[in-house]
């Protein structure tokens, strides 16, 4: 392979100095490797290209080796990691494409646009696979809501997600929001998208067929977000001034909607052989990755790319991250047909180059070669590192701290109960999800508010359930147990609706991988996720790593967000989380162990993040989930709701109250015989538990099924009907919580803070 024919420095480009290489985030060794690949010095344009492709964001330099440990296969996996999105078979000829992505740094700088463009990017990842987006979810982690800046970020992010997704017309079916001082400076904003297609309509991001035509489609290229990919791989620092701040990318959801419809029409037309979003690192990553995947080369002339501003250099055009753009490979001779479809959708399409046999990523400017780089080494040759890791002292001290002195609630049990239920972490996220269109396209069977959202596969009686989960406090205190817990909880949430957990996507949000305690967190997280996914048979089909979530040396909690997918074969067997009828019998499946480490109780009542977080018994978890699924299939259940943040207190409250707009809820009377302190019993976040209810006549069948699966099953009480209270007895106390009071706490908490404080 020969490169560099005629590649010469472009007049006006800065000379390649060690400082410039360093500014591009490349080490001297990496630069030497680039020289070896090219057989010469790179041009400025080429340096920019390598810098973007070998950034953490595109090149996964510090994570790739560990990520290889994750299980990725199962008979139902059609496409594993490596494509724009993972794809699984969901039955009746349908395939589901899904993926989660972070937009943390852009959201910290400009919450509204940062979050909006995050949604835009993940939608494109899914519809470029040929799938129509049918649902989105979002996982958000912020600092404490008593800080005005946090309220500004929270409000802006939610509005940004809503305005973008609503305009494109994709229902939001779920997500999660956490508030903890661990995210004070660095919010975590992860967006997930699910898309459906007929299995045969799957298309991949490849540039096949020498002579085929490369077309730039959609919005024009501006100077936005140049080096966003590198930016996403650096920490924010207090001194970030405007000059050094890359320009914010502005989303245009209307153009996205047109691009979505046009792309699906293009894919269905057969006029194109490949399509990819110009996401991080724009034209550079889309062009070189498509070539790399298919072993071909591409050649393009940046002078042919439609631009929004005058005087853009090849460097800028190649690295721009302007939103709502696609790179399309049209079959030779079909360019006009492609253009016709795009014109109908009022979109621009420009022929910018072609697929070649050279194996190189070759870029011209008005016919003059400005870059010529072997495609595969560029996309796959990024050096990878496995850095040493060791648990940090600070977290070790917190984890091993004796929390027994904090078991007593200072102002009594009732006060603690109301504080936990009214803590923004446990309280209803209605304020969030009612800003998202949850019902557009009339397939939302279970909307946000329960354990997992469920979307119908149009024209069938099947559904896809999805949930995102990560308790960052648990993963902070013990990354391995926390990661296992996140997978277990996500699967349990999906199973509670009656859907079989199938596969996950994940978004790993961490601090700087160059620090040993962060690397320790990362490694432990991957190992925990590996074990849980293997055991629960939910392989990993893709995901995203976001490092450098740090400000002034302080990193976010390690936050591996799990996006779990489940399939429900018969929507008539769906189970919801709210108690239903007076007289129904309530059971606890699983065992109370009273684990208060890392709990919401300790945070909300004692302002403490400490202790060993709940452990995960994978065998018990698997048995529990299979048992729930069997009960759902046998239509034994009137309700099912898992136990997580806030413990039994939160679960029982939510099952009594139901959704925000269904009237007063129903009361319940429960009694626990466990020999545990009251707080440990009611607020412990022990894994592997679900509260279910059934009609009196179904009690025996339910108990038999639990016994069949070896799942501990304790009869704890009954549903007592409308307008009353939640009554809880333990061996030492009795509590009566009026539903009105619970309603006010649970539904009023977040609106109260957001409306009053402004």
């Amino acid at each position, binding site marked *: 392979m020969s490169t560099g024919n005629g590649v010469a420095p472009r007049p006006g480009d800065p000379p390649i100095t060690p400082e410039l290489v360093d500014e591009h985030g490349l080490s001297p060794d990496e630069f030497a490797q680039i020289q070896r690949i090219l057989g010469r010095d790179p041009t400025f344009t080429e340096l920019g290209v390598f810098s973007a492709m070998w950034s953490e964001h595109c090149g996964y330099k510090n994570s790739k080796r560990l990520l290889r440990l994750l299980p990725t296969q199962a008979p139902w996996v059609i496409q594993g990691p490596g494509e724009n999105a993972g794809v699984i078979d969901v039955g009746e000829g349908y395939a589901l494409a899904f993926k989660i992505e972070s937009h943390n740094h852009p959201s910290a700088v400009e919450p509204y646009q940062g979050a909006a463009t995050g949604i835009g990017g993940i939608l494109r990842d899914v519809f470029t696979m040929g799938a129509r987006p049918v649902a989105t979810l979002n996982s958000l982690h912020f600092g404490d809501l008593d800080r005005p800046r946090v309220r500004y970020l929270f409000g802006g992010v939610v509005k940004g997600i809503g305005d973008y997704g609503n305009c494109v*017309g994709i229902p939001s079916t779920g997500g999660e929001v956490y508030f903890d001082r661990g995210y004070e400076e660095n919010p975590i904003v992860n967006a997930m998208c699910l898309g459906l297609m007929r299995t045969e309509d799957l298309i991949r991001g490849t540039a096949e067929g020498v002579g085929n035509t490369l077309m730039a489609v959609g919005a024009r290229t501006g100077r936005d977000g140049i080096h966003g990919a590198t930016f996403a791989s650096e920490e924010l620092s207090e001194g970030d001034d405007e000059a050094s701040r890359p320009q914010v990318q502005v989303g245009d959801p*209307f153009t996205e909607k*047109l691009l979505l419809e046009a792309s699906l029409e293009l894919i269905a037309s057969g006029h194109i052989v490949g399509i990819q979003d110009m996401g991080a690192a724009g034209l550079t990553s889309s062009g070189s990755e498509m070539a790399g995947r298919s072993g071909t080369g591409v050649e393009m002339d940046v002078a042919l790319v439609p631009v929004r501003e005058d005087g853009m250099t090849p460097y800028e055009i190649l690295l721009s991250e302007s939103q709502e753009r696609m790179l399309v490979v049209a079959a030779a001779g079909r360019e006009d047909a492609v253009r016709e479809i795009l014109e109908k959708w009022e979109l621009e399409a420009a022929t910018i180059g072609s697929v070649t046999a050279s194996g190189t990523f070759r870029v011209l400017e008005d016919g003059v070669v400005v870059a010529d780089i072997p495609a595969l080494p560029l996309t796959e040759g990024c050096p990878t590192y496995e850095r040493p890791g060791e648990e940090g002292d600070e977290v070790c001290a917190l984890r091993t701290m004796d929390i027994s002195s904090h078991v007593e609630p200072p102002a009594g049990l009732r006060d603690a109960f109301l504080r936990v239920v009214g803590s923004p972490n446990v309280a209803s996220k209605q304020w969030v999800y009612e800003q998202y269109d949850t*019902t*557009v*396209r009339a397939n939302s*069977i279970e909307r946000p508010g329960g354990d997992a959202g469920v979307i119908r596969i149009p024209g069938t009686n099947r559904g896809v359930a999805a949930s995102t989960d990560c308790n960052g406090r648990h993963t902070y205190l013990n990354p391995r147990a926390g990661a296992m817990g996140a997978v277990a909880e996500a699967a349990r949430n999906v199973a509670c609706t009656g859907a079989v957990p199938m596969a996950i996507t994940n978004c790993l949000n961490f601090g700087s991988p160059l620090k040993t305690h962060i690397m320790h967190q990362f490694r432990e997280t991957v190992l925990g996720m590996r074990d849980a996914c293997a055991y629960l048979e939910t392989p990993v089909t893709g995901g995203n790593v976001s490092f450098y979530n740090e400000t002034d040396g302080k990193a976010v909690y390690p936050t591996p967000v799990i996006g779990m997918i489940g399939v429900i074969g018969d929507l008539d067997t769906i189970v919801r989380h709210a108690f239903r009828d007076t007289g129904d019998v309530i059971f606890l499946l699983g065992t109370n162990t009273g684990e208060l480490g890392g709990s919401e109780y300790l945070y909300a009542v004692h302002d403490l993040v400490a202790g060993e977080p709940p452990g995960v018994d994978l065998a018990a978890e698997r048995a529990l989930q299979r048992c729930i699924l069997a009960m759902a299939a046998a239509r034994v259940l009137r309700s099912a709701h898992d136990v997580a943040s806030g413990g039994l207190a939160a679960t029982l409250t939510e099952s009594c109250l139901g959704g925000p707009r269904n009237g007063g809820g129903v009361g319940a009377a429960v009694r626990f015989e466990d020999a545990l302190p009251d707080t440990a019993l009611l607020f412990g976040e022990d894994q592997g538990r679900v509260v279910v209810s059934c009609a009196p006549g179904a009690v025996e069948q339910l108990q038999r099924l639990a016994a069949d699966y070896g799942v501990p099953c304790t009869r704890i009480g009954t549903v007592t009907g409308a307008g009353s209270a939640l009554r809880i007895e333990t061996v030492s106390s009795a509590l009566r919580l009026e539903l009105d009071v619970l309603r006010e706490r649970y539904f009023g908490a977040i609106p109260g803070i957001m409306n009053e404080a402004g």
Partner: protein
Amino acid sequence: MNVAVITFPGSNCDQDCVRSVELAGGSARYVWHREVSLGDSDAVIVPGGFAHGDYLRPGAIARFSPIMDAVIDFGRGGGLVVGICNGFQVLCEAGLLPGALLRNRSLRFQSHDCFMRVERSDTPYTGDYRVGQVIGMPLSHADGNYYADPDTLAALEAEGRVVFRYCDADGAVTQDANPNGSLNNIAGIANARGNVLGMMPHPDRAIEAVLGSLDGLPLFTSLVGALARAEVA
């Protein structure tokens, strides 16, 4: 009998509307906004979504889409035209219905279920409801706050042109039950002749029990029934 569902760039609920008509026993087809004729359509639905991105004001740009001249002529001539959500906004901008839809009182996009009281059952869209019936369905909008100047509002009330009003589960028309600040809790209105209807909530998302409500279906069966009767006559 054929219902035209207009698709603007940015329409999101055109499929839901076609499906609703079909479930009600009628037939419907899509009409792209750049067409200039409604062909042999017997009724028109302007669906929800974000036509032209809702940029400037919802409905402002869509109102000038090429097909809209035909829709306006059709409505002025007594043809059945219903606008749902964004479609309601388009019809107001186009002058087929009076008033305007302002930003929600909360200043937020709102997506949740609401209750409405049916005020008229003698329109082509509400024949299968009862007057006073309380119906529940989703709403989903940022600009649903109905406004008209005092004279217009008085005329709407005097002429009985308020078709749906936001209410609570028991049918009481209260400010608490008003989701967006609409004057007089107005959720849907008709033109003077009664052939053009606009409403903010989504009957097209309440057409199957599995979706949580069937209360939207009568709107479409009423429409299909009215067209069938017109065909016979």
